[in-house]
């Protein structure tokens, strides 16, 4: 499951960057999201698309009040919600 969550997220980053004509930084777990080349609107689209494809939005259900800062945080946030 977790592999598929990760690959779904990574492919959404790629696709949204392409659609919004943004240059995506090389993706690694310690990449700070705000340094990835995507802006707030791009992240909003990524979250909406992930809700379509994974069927949930962890921001809406999480008890954890922390917003993800790195790509690794972001993926873990989704993986934890998928459990």
């Amino acid at each position, binding site marked *: 499951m977790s592999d598929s969550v990760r690959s779904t997220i990574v492919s959404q980053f790629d696709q949204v960057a392409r659609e919004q004509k943004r240059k995506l930084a090389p993706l690694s777990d310690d990449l700070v999201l705000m340094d990835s080349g995507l802006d707030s609107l791009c992240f909003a689209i990524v979250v909406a698309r992930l809700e379509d494809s994974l069927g949930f939005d962890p921001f*809406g259900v999480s008890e954890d*009040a*922390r917003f993800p800062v790195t790509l690794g945080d972001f993926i873990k946030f989704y993986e934890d919600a998928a459990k």
Partner: protein
Amino acid sequence: MPQNDPSSLWESLSGRPNQSDRCIWAPNSEIRLRELVAGSTLNGRLNELRGRSVLILMHDQLTAALALAQIDGIARRLVLCPPDLDGQHIPLVMAMAAVNAVVTDLSPAEVGAIGGNCLIRCSSAVSPGAEVRGKQESTEWILFTSGTSGAPKMVSHSLSSLAGAIKGGSSLDAAIVWSTFYDIRRYGGLQIFLRAMLGGGSLLLSGTEESTADYLGRAAAHSVTHITGTPSHWRRALMSGAAHRILPHYVRLSGEIADQAILDSLRETYPVARIAHAFASTEAGVAFEVEDGLAGIPVSQFAQANGGVELKIEDGSLRVRSPRTAVRYVGSPGATLVDAEGFVDTGDILEQSNGRYHFIGRRGGIINVGGLKVHPEEVEAVINRHPRVQMSLVRSRKNPITGAVVVAEIVLKPELNPSSAATESAGLTREILENCHRALAAHKVPASIRFVPSLDVTPSGKVARPNA
């Protein structure tokens, strides 16, 4: 307003013998207010603006701030252009607001034809030598309502209607350092600018080209104490990893619905700060502020008039009557801002549950994507241009990053049923999105498209829109 209602910003600034080290900071410059009150950025031409309707048209936010501080109290009217005003609207704006002087840092080519009007170049550098000011007048402030499509819409305010609202920094405390993620040429930012100028503090401006982390780094370096932005601004701050660098006493959210997640995150990040979420719009002014850390507004806040602000709900939407609302629309004959009883209809739909009112959206389905408004009909018109689309419904979907995003449901013409051909559906989605990207601003392009077998249609033949 703090201190005996000054008749102008300048009177307030110059009436403080002890300016000590009050400053306005921009990304690459700083202006000491004591130097500003002893100098000018208008090349000695301030008095040419006396009694005129003055368009403030600037690239640079700091230059705009300095111009406002000097011209309020001299001009009959200040027309404050937002940073993203489409240049093609300038002639229309000038006609609507009877502009007869332009103060700008733009090149003559960018300003375009201004007829026989007075044109004054303004810089962000203060030259020594104060201008002769003479008699003050009460200047009318004209602001643009926030980003809808089509022709600009403007409303009329006064210094006191704009400055009367922000709590939390009303004392004349020189130690207060205000800052805002907003540009000060928008309502949310303008309040902070005015509060800093009329109160005793300093002001740190955000930079248009600056990253959130760099902005917060500067805010930390100048020990910002009072900081405001939309929930989207704050989410971006939290995701930048730099939010913890500042230690504000007062954190304020406005301009969009503050949900529980963002309030909880800010509480965790700033455990000792006062955290307030407010409802404010250019038309209605600041209607209320909530400081109990919970989303929504306690019903009890509707029962009592607070600071002269009265709230009510009629036909589902929030109505506001207060000294802080705008007075009227400018240059839009027939458009009414206040009803017969003096209430402004905000168009925001509220629902009551568990003793609190919650915003559920806007009348007419207008979608607020990170503070930018989207009319669903505009997006539907673009989607419907695709030859295979029969009809579409564009609506808002809640989003943790921008508050809301645009999503579309589409009914295809009968000859094609994409549910039986997933690859064809993916291709169609791509084509429709490409059409949208070509014709619309990025925030208006649907984040998600779903093909549906049918959409509800009202008896009058229109696509049925779920309320708000």
